[in-house]
Structures are given as C-alpha cells and as structure tokens.
C-alpha cells in the first residue's frame, strides 16, 4: 500500500489488524520484517517548506534524499548529517528517502562535528498505532516545549509510528573542502592522528580510515582527516595539522572537489565492502577502543568517527558480539541474518523500551520484532 496523504495512512493503520511492515525507499533490506501488509511512505513526497535564511526545511517522509539534496544545492545548502546510501553495501535498489534516514538515524562522517541525523531533526508528524495523527517539535532550532519525542522517533525504525513529515535544520555548503590522506599508517598511528586532530582547534568534520586495496589506489590503507570552510581557512588548518603530525610520513593534501567527494562517499557508504562476501557489522565504541576492536580479529575494517565507528566484514557464521564482549558500546548487524540485528540492551532499558512501544503501538502492529 502506498498512501499519498496522511489521512490514507490513518485509514490503513486503523483497518489493519495484523503486522504491518513500514518502508520508505526499501534500501535497507535488513529492516524489512515479515508481515501480511506493507505500508510504503514513498507516496508521501515533496518539500513543503524551505527557508534558506532560517536554515530549515520541511519535507514529506517519502521525499527522496536526492530531491532534498537538489533543492538544497540550489541555495548552496545541504543536510549536515551526510546520510549513508545503503544500496551499494546491501545490493538493493530503490530510492533512499528522508523518512528512512530519520527512521534509522542514519548519520555519516560529519556525525562527529555536526551531530547525528537526530540532531538535525527539528520536528516530526507521525501516525501512532491507534491511528492518531501526532506531532512533536516544530521547525525552529531551539525548542524545549514539552518532551522531545523527535529524538525518540529518530532511530525507532517505524516501531513507534509511521513518520509522515519531518522538519530539518540544514547547513550551508562550505566554500572549500580539504583532506589530508596518510598512506599505510598502522592502527596505533591512525588513532593518534584521529585523537590529535579531533582534540585540536581546527574543527575537523571527518576522521576515517579505509582498508588496504580501496579504490585500486595501491595496497596500503588510507587514513583521512577532513576540514571544511572558507578557502584560506581550510588551507591554514591543513597546514597546521601537517605540522602537528610531522612525526608521520607526509600526507597527501587533497583539495580537488571530485577526489574529496569520492573519498568521503566511500567512507559514508562503506564502499570497500560493497562487492565482498560476508556479514557487515557496525560497531559504536569509545574512539580509543577502536584498537581493541580491530585487535580482536583479522577481519577487514572501515573506520569512521575518529575511531568511534568500526565497520567489520566478518564471515557469516561469526558472532562479532561474542568476540567484542567486554568492550563498552554496541554492534548492529547491518548485512547478514545469522544473528539478531540489534544488540540486546540491559534489562531496565529493555523494559522501558518495551513500555514505550506498548504505548505508541498498543496492538504491536508496526514492524513487529524488528527492534525486540
């Protein structure tokens, strides 16, 4: 079912007795549950309000991210949280939607500086399990009026309601992007670069590492640091950072737009794992724990968020959570199905989450079983 307005969403929810699968563009195949019916929000599409001078945009949940990017680019603006496109990694087709990005709180390399998708989200409208149209937040940047259900809805993967409309804070596209790229740094050296750069005053917007053999450049790994802003400022900061890391071989300085795009898209979309066989795990840890995570196995890794996000390509029968036991954080299985997608949480958090789902979706019809 593909309703084209909120009213039809209400009718579908009210007339559905059994499990209902909620989808956006359907590009995250792991989030598809077994259900009698599927409700796609792709029919709810379009940017309904855009105020470049206020840095805010309101869009229907099914609006393709590509369309939002186009609308924003015309005013030299963009989404700050750099959402991942899962199609390459998961071999899916379809069109990533803004509702899907919100539902999974999909956040790319700029997470470390500009925040996650949830930090850009100012307001939501959604239909709950009783078929009520509800709203929370709004379209202004500072809003503490009542509880912040906006954050709760972000990342709830359709289990609390069908998100129909989102309002977002956007940001200006900077004049210039510059990347320092070190070839062949070991893990300890890479961490030193990440922590040193992120602890510097130079406002880093990307700190990542791609594995050996990426992009057919050569056989070594690459460690990247990104800065964005006015051109002179970018050049100045890249220079200062090079001085800071004089102990390592000189990095390549990348100011070319296309090359920057290619690097950060590869990080964002975990491209190195796209055509390789195996399960893909996404592990969120304290950045310095990156060393422990990669040290526990010989598997291949893509690292983002200055060490705080480790993607691992593991054989299909390996439970990475068992291997990483004792390291604070969590692992989500993004590709593969031998294990539950989500890391089990402590008993009290589980009880509270269950309680919330029960209130938002009393009949338990939305994406049942997806999050527990």
């Amino acid at each position, binding site marked *: 079912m593909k309703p084209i307005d909120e009213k039809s969403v209400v009718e579908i929810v009210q007339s559905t007795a059994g499990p209902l699968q909620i989808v956006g563009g359907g590009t995250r195949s792991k989030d598809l549950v077994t259900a009698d019916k599927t409700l796609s929000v792709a029919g709810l599409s379009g940017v309904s309000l855009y*105020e*470049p*001078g*206020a840095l*805010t945009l309101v869009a229907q949940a099914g609006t393709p991210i590509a369309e939002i990017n186009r609308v924003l680019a015309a005013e030299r*603006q963009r989404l700050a949280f750099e959402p991942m496109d899962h199609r390459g990694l998961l071999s899916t087709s379809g069109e990533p939607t803004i509702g899907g990005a919100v539902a999974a*709180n999909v*956040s790319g390399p700029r*997470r470390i500086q500009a*925040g996650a998708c*949830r*930090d850009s989200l100012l307001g939501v409208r959604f239909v*709950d399990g009783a078929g*009520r*149209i*509800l*709203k929370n937040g*709004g*379209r*202004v*940047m*500072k*809003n*503490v*009026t*009542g*509880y*912040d*259900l906006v*954050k*709760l809805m*972000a990342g*709830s993967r359709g289990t*609390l309601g069908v998100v129909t409309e989102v309002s977002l804070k956007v940001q*200006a596209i900077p004049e210039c992007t510059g990347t320092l790229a070190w070839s062949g740094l070991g893990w300890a050296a890479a961490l030193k670069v990440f*922590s040193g750069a*992120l*602890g*510097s*005053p130079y*406002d880093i917007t990307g700190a990542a590492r791609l594995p050996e053999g990426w992009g057919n450049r050569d056989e070594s790994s690459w460690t990247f640091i990104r800065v964005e802003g*006015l051109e*002179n*400022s970018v050049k100045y900061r890249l220079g200062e950072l090079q001085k800071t890391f004089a102990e390592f071989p000189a990095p390549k300085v990348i100011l070319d737009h296309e090359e920057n795009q290619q690097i950060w898209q590869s990080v964002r979309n975990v491209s190195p794992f796209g055509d390789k066989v195996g399960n893909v795990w996404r592990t*969120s840890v*304290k950045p310095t724990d990156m060393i422990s995570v990669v040290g526990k196995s010989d598997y291949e890794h893509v690292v983002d968020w200055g060490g*705080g*996000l480790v993607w691992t390509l593991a054989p299909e029968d390996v439970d990475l959570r068992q291997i990483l036991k004792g390291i604070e*954080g969590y692992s989500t299985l993004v590709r593969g199905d031998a294990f539950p997608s*989500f890391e089990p*949480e402590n008993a*009290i*958090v589980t009880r*509270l*989450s269950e*309680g*919330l789902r029960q*209130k*938002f979706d009393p009949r338990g019809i939305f994406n049942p079983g997806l*999050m527990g």
Partner: protein
Amino acid sequence: MPAPNTEVIGRKAQIVRRLRSVLPSDAVIDAPEETRAYECDALTAYRCAPLCAVLPRTTHEVSQILKICSEEGVPVVPRGAGTSLAGGALPTADSVILGVARMNEVLETDYENRFVRVQTGRTNLAVTGAVEGEDFFYAPDPSSQLACAIAGNIAMNSGGAHCLKYGVTTNNLMGVTLVLMNGDIVEIGGAHLDAAGLDLLGVICGSEGQLGVVTEATLRILRKPEGARPILMGFDDNEIAGTCVSDIIKAGILPVAIEFMDRPCIRATEAFAGAGYPDVEALLIVEVEGSEAEIDDQLARIVEIARRHNPVELRESKSSEESARIWLGRKSAFGAMGQINDYMCLDGTIPVTELPFVLRRIGEMSKEYGLDVGNVFHAGDGNMHPLILFDANKPGDLELCEAFGADILRLCVEVGGCLTGEHGVGIEKRDLMIDQYAPNDLDIQMAVKDVFDPDWLLNPAKVFPLEASQTRRMPVQS
C-alpha cells in the same frame, strides 16, 4: 498548583524518619525555617515550602530516597541549583525536594576521547573549569552558567548564546546515570555515540525531571578555538537588522553567536553598564571564531553584507578589551532591565524570517497593555527573550504582565515557533501547552511519563496543563 495531599503531610514525621535512616544526618532538612530556602526557584512569584528537603551525595543515596518516597507515595521535586525561570523546581507542600547540589564531583576526564563524566550537581561553568587547563570547554552556555547545575541543564535541555554553532544540551550529552522513581539505577548511553535501540537519552534530556533523577552525566567536551572576536552593528530599523541576520546565515557564514538588542534594552543597558553602545533602533553582536586571519576573513564578509543594509554603526573589535566592552552590555542586559523595574523574561522561539513581524506586533501589544518591553535575544536561531516590565507592588500588574506574556507566546506559536526555546515549561507555561499541542500530542507525551514513572510522583504538576494530567495524577491525590 494542585491542592497538597493532607494525608501525606500528616505522615511527615514517619517519612522524615525513614529518610534519615538511609542518609547522613546533615542530608535531611525538615525544620520549617530551613525548608523555606527551597520554597521557590528563580521564578520567585510563586512560593511554597516543601515537606522536607534531602541533599544526597551519591547515586546510591538517591536510589534509596526515591525507593522510600515511592513506597510512601510522596511526590518528589528534583532540584539542581534552583535557577529555573519557569518554576521547574517549585515544590508543593506535600513534596520532598531532592537537591543534587552536593553531588558535584568530576568522575572522569578523557581528552583523547573528548568527554568528561560528572555528578550532575556540578555547575555548568565548573564543568568547563575542570577541563580548561587543557584548553577544552563544555559548549552549552546558559546565561546562568555560573550558578546553574548540569542536572537542571539536562532537565530543561538548556541552550545559550553560542548554541548557534555548538548546539544545545541534548547535542552535547552522551550518557546519563538515571535513577527511576522506584529506585532502579540505569546507565543510558556513555562514551560511545548514539543508541543501540530506542534513543531514551533523547527523551530524558528536556523532560524537566519528570522521568527520573539524573545523577551522573557524560558530556562532550571540545577544544577551545584559537580565538574569537565580535562585531557590533547598529541599525535604525528592527526589520533591516532582521534581514541582515538572515542574509549572513544565507551567505554560508556560521557565526558562533548572533545577539540582538532593541532600543529600550540598549538605553537601559547604557544607563546601567555604560558599554558605549550607540543609541540605535536595533543592535546586533555577531561573534566568529578561528585564528586571527580566519576571524578577519569572516568579519570582512559579514561587514560586506551589513553594509548593504546601511548600518548606522559598525564597530569591529580589534582587541580583547574591545571584545569585552561589546559583550559587556549584552551580558548586563537582564540586570539593567531589573534596575528599572520588575520584569518577566519570556523565551519563545520563532522562525528567523518572522523576526521583523513579531517585533512589530510586540511593540503594538506593548501599547495596548500599557507595559514596556525590551527585546534581547539570540537572533541566529530565533530564540527571543522579550522582557516585560511591571511593578510587583502595584495590584494587578503581575497578572497584566502574565496576560501580555501569554499573548506574545501565542504569537510565537502562530508564526510557526514555540513557547519555550531554552527555559522549559515548568509551571510558567504549563497552561499554554494547549496552544501549541493538540490533546493527543500531549497525551502521547504523558504516556512516556506513564512508562518511566507510572504513579506520577516525579515533579507531577509541571509541563502539562493540570486538567490534562489530572486523571494520571489522581491516584496520588486520593
């Protein structure tokens, strides 16, 4: 406030005895002359002494207090430093004030991973104080930062002048230790980013102490920028100043702060602090950060935009002394208005594009109500702080002022904004919630409280209109 439960008040001796049995003797305050210290927060127009106050030092003590209060059916009002302008920590006569002021330790400092873990009674400024030796800082900077506690910042999701660039509390909060009303202690989030499952941290932040008591917090810290410098601009028209703000933002420059003051505020401030502000209709203070060259570069672009709007004054700071003078007036604004009269500070947020219209309407309403109003606010994000002047000694003036304030807040909602941008709802805006939210929107929020605090004992009479929350609070009252 709802009528206190006399049956609970009648059990005071027993409740105090039980609390004393689990706490050090100096941690329970029940003498009437001492509980009066907790009768209000910074919204001083409303006062009520609590049944008693408890001042725990550890998470374990908080857990025991809540367990006892839960068993006794006693409402608990959590309190940070008592600086809420919204009455968020106002007690009722049948409630226990749980103050976290003694919980002010730094538990962990980690520069490599850029976080600090503190007990939440620590003040906002003391968090930065703990890390500035290494040139780091905690970004959210509410005006009350010298006094306000992190616990209250989390409860109200506090902002500040610099959140245009760095975000508000929720964007800088990584984890909490939360004690639920039944005494359960739970860790949510931590030094890693984002939630494995539902984002409970996101809903706890800003829940005004109604879901649990946050005793410890993991906060993101940032390296200080190399430098920062403001520029002061004067315009002879509010509307033009508003357009200038919008143009700066559209040009892709991201200042760390854009502050706005109107003529009544400028005049009061000048008389009070003598910062040397020009006598203009609207004044903007725009601050940018970076190295000297980066600052020059950004300020040059801002000046270029400002010149298109025929400013009557452009004063670029060239030294730290000049910067301090530019900020002096802004930082003294509230105190200056307080010298003239009693005032009520509002906190509505509007879309930046509506600034000129809203300022004009506030001016018109000021004439209709016969009460003066000064505007000083964070223009970059549309968070307004109209200050309505009134005379507390004049019968009816407070009520008139409250009615005027409510009209301004309704106007904020009408133009697409909200009732409160950083102060919180508390009791002050509780009954205006129906102007922003439909009954079902409030119901789903209250359903969240049902999950965390089924008996509605934590800060029960706040945030939601009493009528809307009545059936949920009733079991406590009976």
